[in-house]
């Protein structure tokens, strides 16, 4: 990339524009093939799983004649390739079909469930980052100390304890025993009639409308599942921060800074962390993208109507339109987040800055 740009710069503006265009073009080609591959794989896997999609539409008790007719209506009697082609054609026109489980257009469903997951993942990642990065830095600086051991244990538990179990345990303690947080879902039933979401992000919507009681209620609902997700991303982020920091702290520029007589605090937070921040962005972005996929188990335990639950339910019911739609959205999120972390890289690392 940088070589192309350097060349372009020496040969004048026209070439530079060309290079940018070819960059964009390359990105589009990659994105298009990624999507096509994603769709093809999901589509064919969806068709070979030994579940009859008609069952999802009709249930077990439909008479044979209705089953046959529905199979024809759903186009399931056509050859696989032709089914895929028909799906692709409709998808290119923006029609992702209708979910058989909810009877709504798939994209309407996703517009409804995705904000729930984004909100949860964002709060979770915030918690994980705000706590995880300083913990990781401390663990690296005070290597072998109590805090280092603590980070190690926290990380180990985060990796090995099933989230399902931890979630239930947290519910028993914080919800049932202590009554600190609210459950289930995103809001208390009382607010079902006083609150109309706009964007689907309840925290933002309620604050914007000045409904602080709703905000508080939404907060009480999100805080436990978000903390749980935050804990798991904290486990990952703190471990990674620790190893990046250890790597930076052995570099020569740290020795130089020390020789210059800079304060230890400035060396760690101002110099070492700043350099470690570059790879950290990728780590955090990937962990965020992971949460955006929807944490199925967390969503199940907390009755959180997010995209993870939606796709899993759809897959179990062979509701292929919903699964494919969900896959496209999640694929886009991954591509988008990768792009975003590339951009952030350029902001943080002067060597990759676009001139």
């Amino acid at each position, binding site marked *: 990339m940088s070589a192309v740009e350097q060349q372009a710069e020496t040969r004048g503006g026209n070439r530079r524009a060309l290079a940018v265009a070819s960059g964009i073009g390359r990105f589009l080609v990659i994105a298009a093939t990624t999507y096509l591959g994603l769709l093809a794989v999901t589509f064919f896997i969806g068709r070979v*799983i*030994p*579940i009859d999609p008609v069952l999802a539409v009709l249930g077990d008790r439909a008479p044979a004649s209705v089953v046959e007719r529905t199979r024809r209506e759903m186009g399931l009697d056509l050859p696989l390739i032709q089914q895929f082609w028909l799906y692709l054609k409709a998808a290119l026109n923006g029609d992702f079909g209708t979910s058989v489980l909810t009877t709504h257009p798939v994209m309407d469903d996703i517009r409804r469930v995705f904000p729930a997951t984004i909100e949860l993942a964002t709060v979770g990642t915030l918690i994980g980052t705000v706590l995880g990065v300083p913990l990781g830095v401390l663990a690296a600086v005070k290597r072998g100390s109590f805090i280092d051991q603590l980070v190690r244990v926290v990380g180990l538990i985060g990796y090995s304890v099933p989230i399902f179990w931890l979630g239930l345990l947290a519910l028993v303690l914080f919800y049932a025993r202590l009554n600190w947080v609210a*459950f289930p879902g995103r809001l208390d039933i009382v607010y079902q009639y006083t609150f109309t979401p706009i964007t689907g992000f309840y925290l933002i919507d309620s604050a914007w409308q000045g409904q602080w009681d709703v905000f508080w209620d939404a907060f009480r609902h999100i805080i436990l599942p978000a903390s749980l997700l935050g804990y798991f991303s904290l486990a990952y982020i703190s471990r990674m921060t620790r190893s990046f920091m250890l790597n930076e702290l052995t570099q020569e520029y740290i020795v130089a800074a020390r020789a210059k007589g800079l304060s230890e605090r400035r060396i760690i937070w101002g110099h070492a962390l700043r350099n470690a921040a570059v790879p950290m962005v990728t780590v955090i972005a990937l962990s965020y993208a992971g949460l955006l996929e929807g944490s199925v188990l967390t969503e199940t335990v907390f009755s959180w*109507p997010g995209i993870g639950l939606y796709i899993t339910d759809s897959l179990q019911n062979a509701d292929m339109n919903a699964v494919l739609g969900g896959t496209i959205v999640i694929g886009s999120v991954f591509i988008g987040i990768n792009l975003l972390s590339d951009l952030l890289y350029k902001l943080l690392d002067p060597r990759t800055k676009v001139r």
Partner: protein
Amino acid sequence: MKMEQFAFKSRVWLAGAALAAALAASPAFAVTPADTLVEGFAIDDIISMDPAEAFELSTAEVTGNTYDLLVRLDLNDTSKVKGDLAESWTVSDDGLTYTFKLKPGLKFASGNPITAADVAYSFERAVKLDLSPAFIIDQFGINGDNVTEKAKAIDDTTFQFTVDKSYAPSFVLNCLSSTVGSVVDSKLVKEHAKAVTPSDDHKWDNDFGNAWLKTGYAGSGPFKLREWRANEAVVMERNDNYWGDKPKLARVIYRHMKESSAQRLALQNGDIDVARNLEPNDLNAIAGDSNLTTTSAPKGTVWYISLNQKNETLAKPEVRQAFKYLIDYDALGSTLLKGIGEIHQTFLPKGDLGELDENPYKLDVAKAKELLEKAGLKDGFKVTMDVRVGQPTTGMAESIQQTAAQAGVKIEIIPGDGKQTLTKYRARNHDIYIGQWGQDYFDPNSNAQTFASNPDNSDDGKVATLAWRNAWDIPDLTKQTEAALLEKDSAKRADMYKELQQKVLDTSPFAIIYQQIEVAGISSKLQGFKLGPSFDTNFVSEVSKE
């Protein structure tokens, strides 16, 4: 109302307070609104709210509370029906024509009057749409071409229903009491009907409002449907135009919750008033809680294992018999099924006309070995069992695996997702299947037909009864089942079903294990909460709060 305002204000105040302080302050015990019933309920089986299409258990409950029928199951004696919208009815001497007289002055929730024309339209659309539950009406010789003749309005309050054979009146009336007979507001539905191009599959020029009614509402029941949000909630509100006693509460909310333990926690904390999907251990915990009570009712669902008769070993009569002795009914009943099922070995659930309360089989390994030896299988054999993952199915399968091993029968369990095992079962590719069967409508014929009749045992047989799925070829029993339909004397009809059940009990490849009991954990603040004998009779209009 005051209480709510107070709660409202205190929440505003709380929101302002510093986070840490507020968390430490530990807010008061959660309460659901005083005029609203909140139930935690797994409602992910709902696919449509249109009574002509819906055939799912959760939907049946909503339809039962939001729509009216001509006649309804009499909860005091479930072998009979009583008038709902119909004030009275007569059956012609030849047994073919049923004439219903509607109650005067009835109104839909929309305010439109309920007339016999609405009843006729409801039948017309159910038959012409021809969706899952349509066969309940079709079986009376009715189809899209003749329905307007067979189900018609004579005048504003008189509706006539004509059947093709002189059936037992109890059979006809029981079928009309199922949710597919729900009366819809024809004016409202027609306004929302969408034009479609006629095809071989759908010969009519409109969709009879089906697309709209999937999430819409056009009924007259004690409650009206306010909204259904898939996998989130179903909200019902009091219908002020209801002809009978008005519901005591203004609103009922079914909140989607899948997990038994999560439902229990929410119930104990007061966030829901009723928990509907409890497993035995959570049920026990709730029974021991002084603020909560439990309630239960047997439902028309039986659990069974079945042996595919395409498998030559399983097709031997002795082997079929032996399996019935290889299930530890008592142990299952006292552990895994405690509180959620009762041992029941005949195919008609309790409460049906002609129920036979006989459980002759017990675990008897010696007897089973003897039978297997007679079949020339002294050393046992190997066989597979398709099991959907989840309790109580998995636990039952493991128990049977263990007891069968004692007689040398090695069962390999193939775990699968529900839809996956079902797909295999419906294609007759299994050895042994374990699962449940819920009756389609509240009449003995529903289960008799599926367990004891199989008109065409060929692979492309059109009537896919459970007997067909297990390739059990039974021409004699099939005839008997058909004959029971035409017996007008209810007592004699009941006897015929008893005989059928006895034969199935003795010879069939089905080992029926238990009848499901539906349970619910309820807050002791609730009054009048009762579960009905079927899924469409879990009425909530009598419920009130202290």
